[in-house]
């Protein structure tokens, strides 16, 4: 089973970069030729391009939620994300990109797409490379959840 693990985020925007911090840790612990581990600073169409051709995609990203606690980590099947949008007025959401690809007969969409979401409250608006305390504390848990996600495949 061909799997891709993508840490999504912007390393110069504080907590937004948490997905990349997590994937860097995951990289140290998984060595498997069937698993691609990478980082991406993008969403929507570009993100879809990156996961095409894999059986499973695990996307690790900061997720904004009003109801969940900051720094908690959630496993979210992509189907639950019906309002998911790329936070960027110039792109479509990953869901929209997937729906469109399906409509156009794309056959390489992964059957299983899972988001490992680290809950944030605010999208950072200040440049910086450090994670805030709560979000840094969530990294080990997100790493474990990602690795469990892989173990479940075997």
């Amino acid at each position: 089973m061909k799997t891709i693990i993508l840490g999504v985020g912007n390393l110069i925007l504080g907590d937004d970069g948490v997905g990349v911090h997590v994937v860097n840790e995951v990289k140290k612990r998984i060595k498997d030729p069937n698993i691609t581990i990478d980082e991406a600073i993008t969403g929507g169409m570009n993100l879809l391009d990156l996961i095409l051709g894999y059986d499973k995609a695990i996307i690790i990203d900061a997720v904004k939620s009003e109801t969940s606690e900051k720094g908690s980590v959630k496993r979210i099947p992509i189907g639950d994300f019906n309002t998911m949008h790329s936070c960027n007025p110039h792109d479509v959401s990953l869901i929209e990109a997937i729906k469109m690809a399906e409509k156009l007969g794309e056959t390489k969409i992964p059957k299983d797409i899972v988001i490992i979401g680290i809950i944030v409250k605010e999208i950072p608006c200040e440049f910086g490379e450090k994670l805030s305390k709560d979000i840094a504390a969530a990294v080990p848990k997100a790493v474990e959840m990602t690795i469990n996600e892989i173990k479940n495949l075997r």
Partner: protein
Amino acid sequence: MKTVTIDPITRLEGHGKISIFLNNEGDVENAYLQIPELRGFERFAQGRRAEDMPQITSRICGVCPVAHHFAATKALDAAFSVEPPSAAKKLRELMYMGYFIYDHTLHFYYLGGPDFVVGPDAPPAKRNVIGVIEKAGVEIGKDVIKHRAYGQKITAILGGKATHPVCGLPGGVSKGLNKDEVKDIKTMVDSCINFAKFSLKLFDDIVLQNKDYVNLILSDPYQLETYNMGLVDKNNKVNFYDGKIRLTDQKGKEKVKFDVKDYHKHVAEHVEEWTYIKFPYLKSIGWKGFKDGKESGIYRVGPLGRLNVAEGMATPMADKEYKKMYETLGGKSVNSTLAFHWARLIELLYATERAKELINDPEITSQKIRNPVGEPGEGMGVTEAARGTLIHHYKLTKEGLIDKANLIVATTNNAGAINMSVRDAAKGVIKKGDVSNKTLNMVEMAFRAYDPCFACATHTLPGGMPLEVKIFNHNKKLYKTLRQNL
């Protein structure tokens, strides 16, 4: 008019927010658009190696990485007093055309287009690219995907990476083109030219042949008679990568033309208490509030701004389309906000034609692609991002580290105009307190035309085309909230 004070706590972070204030009659008295602005760049940049700026700044924004990459690279050319070899300039410009091809395609088909192709009254669930494909057909959908990807591929071949290029260096670029790459790019560019022509025809069929749409484009709420700003070449033709900054008035007459290093001589910034965004305006005219017309120094940038300041396009087919637009919409300047969409497609055609010129240029495979740099100093660099004029300004230490850094981004240049467009659209659609869901879209159309780049995290989920409209009654009490994608 009553004075409206908005608590600074409501200053916006993280998403776009529009506050609309109604008067006693329930009509719109005023409206404010608050756009998040990333802060702390100067402090963040200080002490870093100057040559890292093209990579770092390309990460500022998931939308215009290539524009930031080259604005930074050009600022470094200036700061290190080095002129890149001619081949390097052509490689940079070719890559820049790839960026315009994917960016403008994305905007027209995915973001702006749905309002026209599917229709401004269609429910939000249909007003998206899926709706466009349903209406235009699967084959067109496939073509859209293909050509957007071609633009990305061209950028990736030249830049090393599609989304965050690594090729720009002070004095040139790090990588040239080999013969196989040239062949690949030629094939893609030819296909892109046809696609751009097709897109203009689609616009003609769906929009221009529909009287209601033409009337909408020309309707009052979407008119804004500001000055315009954009880069032009030595013949005053549109140029995305290089040239002088030209400003023209409401009739298309040149107001001023200058080198980027003189930007601060001509443009000043106005501060409002309700937003972090600073509003640039023409110094010689002055800040007169959120007003358009000759007496107000506010200007517009972006596709329509660029076409308005120019005297045509530098490539033949795009130039023909340029003339057609001005003939159809009543001559210079076109002041209709919704004409941004048309201008964008004309620019798409120009980008493809210009890419063809560049890839056919024998010098494009030259390996003389970098000149040695001089002593570190101060420099400014300008490019046209897809959404308007973008400027980077660096002052370096003797060791070549960043001492001071400042960015003037396209959406900031457009901030005053976007705010007015939002207000005028709101005035046009909200009467006697009657606020419907259509309101949100008509207001949204006013600012979507600018393709604004809200400086936000690139993708934090769920994020969204983040828009919240709060409508207050004459007592400043919250009357209604409309939200989208929050």
